[in-house]
């Protein structure tokens, strides 16, 4: 979020706070120690605002509306925000029930919903679905890794995450960022002796082995991508972090040239 220097006075759950222009409600609430539940939000990613779990009530003069805390930028004074008003608690409960009905098979989702007071639902439950479609994996792959290897398919109730044409793609470098950001652990990654496998994306990416010790660290595709993007010397990237450190030590001791030379990272 951009901050423009102007400061606004707002109230959250009855407690006043001044925040810089553009601060999100979620950030402001956190500063007051008020926890607003979130699911699709991830601090490293632009707010996506799709899980609707972080809804809060916003009052601006006579107008009352429901907004999502994660992406609502505070740009006015005298906003009055309630994170647990009766309406919000009721609607958030329904949203959590919808989430639970979709991902009833997911222990993580069940735990999450239970934490926020929803233990079960009489809505129609879907069997075996672990993905909440929060979009973190797609967004991290496109916006932070810059690969856009994965995306969404179709729309409405048919929406899912997918690799293009349901076929393996070289653009997936097996970096595991998606695995890391997934809030429900529904993307599994495994390192076999020769390959890193990400089942969900049908990826089998050859493991990169340290030039010195032969230990696997990362994938060959990661190396190629980094090389294509950064003017970092090749050898630096071909060694695992431990060997890099060792190499640096050796070079300082006058035994060998430093692995990376003048490393510009």
């Amino acid at each position, binding site marked *: 979020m951009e901050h423009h220097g102007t400061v606004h006075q707002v109230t959250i759950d009855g407690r006043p706070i001044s925040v810089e222009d553009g601060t999100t409600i979620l950030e402001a609430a956190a500063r007051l120690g008020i926890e607003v539940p979130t699911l699709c939000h991830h601090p490293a990613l632009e707010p996506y605002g*799709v899980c609707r779990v972080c809804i809060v009530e916003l009052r601006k003069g006579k107008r009352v509306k429901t907004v999502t805390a994660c992406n609502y*930028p505070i740009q006015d004074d005298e906003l009055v925000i309630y994170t647990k008003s009766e309406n919000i608690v009721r609607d958030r409960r329904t949203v959590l029930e919808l989430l639970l009905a979709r991902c009833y098979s997911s222990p993580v989702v069940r735990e999450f919903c239970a934490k926020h007071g929803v233990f079960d639902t009489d809505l129609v439950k879907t069997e075996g679905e672990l993905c909440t479609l929060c979009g973190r994996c797609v967004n991290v792959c496109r916006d932070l890794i810059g690969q856009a290897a994965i995306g969404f398919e179709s729309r409405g109730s048919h929406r899912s995450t997918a690799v*293009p044409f349901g076929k393996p793609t070289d653009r997936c470098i097996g970096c595991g960022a998606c695995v890391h950001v997934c809030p429900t652990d529904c993307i599994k990654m495994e390192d076999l002796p020769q390959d890193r496998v990400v089942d969900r994306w049908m990826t089998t990416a050859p493991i990169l082995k340290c030039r010195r010790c032969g230990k696997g660290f990362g994938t060959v595709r990661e190396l190629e991508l980094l090389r294509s993007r950064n003017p970092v010397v090749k050898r630096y990237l071909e060694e695992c972090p431990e060997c890099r450190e060792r190499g640096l030590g050796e070079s300082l001791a006058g035994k060998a040239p430093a692995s990376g030379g003048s490393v510009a990272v």
Partner: protein
Amino acid sequence: MDIGVDQEWLDSILDHFGRDPGQVIAILHRVQDRHRYLPEGDLRYLADRLSIPDSQLFHISTFYGAFSLKPKGEHVCSVCMGTACHVRGAHRVLEELERKLEIKAGETTSDGEFSIDTVNCLGACALGPLVTVDGEYYGNMTTSKVARLLKRAKGNGKGRLRLEDQEDETRPSADRAEKVHLANPTALSEYRALLQAGYDPQQPLIAICGGTGCLALGASSVRQAFDEATSKNELGIDVRMKFTGCHGFCERGPLVVTHPQENLYVGVKPQDVAEILQTTVQQGSPVERLVYHDPGTGEGIPQETEVPFYKHQERLVFGMNGLIDPTSIDDYIRIGGYSALARALHEMTPEQVIAEVTESGLRGRGGGGFSAGFKWETCRNAHGPIRYVIVNADEGDPGAYMDRSLLEGNPHSVLEGLIIGAYAIAFGVSKAQGYIYVRHEYPLAVKYFIRAVEEARAYGLLGQNILGKEGFHFDVRISQGGGAFVCGESSALMASLEGKPGEPKAKYVHTVHKGLYDQPSNLNNVETWANVPLIVGRGADWYGGMGTEKSKGTKVFSLVGKVNHTGLVEVPMGISLREIIFRIGGGIRDGRQFKAVQTGGPSGGCLPESHLDLPVDFDELTKAGSMMGSGGMIVMDQDTCMVDVARYFLRFLEGESCGKCIPCREGIQQILHILDRICEGNGEDSDLERLVALGNAVQNTSLCALGGSAANPLLTTLEYFEDEYLAHIRDGTCPAGVCRDLIEFTIIEEKCTGCLACIKPCPQDGIAGELKKPHFIDREKCIKCGICYEICKFDAVARV
């Protein structure tokens, strides 16, 4: 694997669209048109050349309903599932097609000959139920016509008109364009004077409605008959012939109006042409048998303006449709077109134009009802090096086709409004670029608007220093949708214009500040733009004199469903729903009882009889739980089940939701589960409470207006027709006789004449009987398809 990739052809298409990633939907339409699907190889090649990730192009290809990754049949039958068609029994037609072809909707026959698609409204609602085969319209479909339809499609061979061929027809002739260049307002008025001098209003003119409805009913062959008859000049009179825009009375097409008599002829056939020429054109008398006859009194009404359907309307925006040829800029200029633009550019500052529009009280006709002038002002005051002014012609509401008819009937009025808007919003503060986003389901509208833009460009009404206004440069790009209702939402529309999947974004920062390509963008719908030349030309005071305190001017509605006179009606704001339905629309068909009127499309609500005296006014309709929306008005009678209607709209929205946020995607599905249960007779009392809670949550917490209004049909039917829900739940009956699990078909012995008509069409061989003896339905075999009910001319089939 795929067929080989024709790179040369793909490159030519890419060049045609300037290799612009924003034109990717248009490019995909070409590929789909050529192969009848999107081959993977083509998509991968395009992604590479347009520098779009494969994953994004794959999402686009699977997001938009117009595209398929699997080959379609040689003949594509598209069944319109719009509201107007739905309440007239479209599902029966669809099921009959499915039975005859032995495939389901979305599938292709194994021999590759036929595919069945369902389409969410083709915008020819007066003709429902409607099916198109290879782009040809077949209106008023019944199950018994399906076999003939398929036979005819086979006989037609491979006669698909390709998109490229269609576009070539729209090029205006170069010689005329060279001659006319309107360098300043004087040149415009001189040119207009020249056109008027060459036009004798007393010279006989035959105006044939060329709107989609009339074309579907055979207007082309009527025109051909007129052409042939007049070319021989047997009458010795010089008769002009003109295809005009939609007249609105689609129900009775093909429509022909003769001038100067202004006689309206309805349901004209080629064989009527000679008589019209002889009796009316030559002798000046009306042809009695072809004029409109009042269904009540039987009285014939020859004058177009006296026909009740037209008499009680106030046709401002639509008024010119019947007078001009939509493919002729000269026609538009002759009747005063572009004089409002000249006035704005040379007699008013941009601020004055905005003030005029604000004072007029014009509110957005697309559904929101936001003040147009205020929106323009906010956009003008936003920051950015360019401002985008955009026409929203993504008229996705099933049962609404006003925008389509305006673009098909008077495209220059929309264009003139847009140019005035560009001047008011951007002149002096930034560059300006125009866009129009049109549904691809409206090929004629696309064609006519492309032509209008090219003509305007040739005349100097688009381009540099327009009409001699130093420094005012403006042009318009045309983008086509891909079959996604959600793209009518502003942020989704803009995403689609950028060549992305049409997914809405949170609008905590408005699109007037950060819209298309993150620049200030002003989006108004077709009808709103078409009002602008009227306001600037005649003044805010005149305009504000019509309507209610907070809703000014007129509104065009598509009056469809179970009403006698379906078609497009333009009425002053403030008129009551009752007047529209009963005075203009002539009441309910077949002497049935009115039950509800649905305004505002899928996001609107269903209002009962007790609300019929509500005035047409943005705020009043909203208060009643419905909305003005873009202007669909669907009339329902006693044979319409309100639970089924709620389920219909929710199912529509389930298919059209982008699926991004949880409440819209999951909430609508859960609501449907419950509605299905109720319609199957398995509902419980507690379901109603559950529905309200779900409806409210979807309404309050969804990301965009689609979800935000999705529950309206549910919540209004629950409010006004709760007894119908309870009849399903407690008594296990469907009072309207619609929900199949709750009804049985039976033959009333006393009424059955034993005509045998129902026996053969029954797909189950489930009706037995002999000639002149009462027939019987075998309940074991009956699948409740309703064909016998539809076919019986003696009302002897009952749904109990």
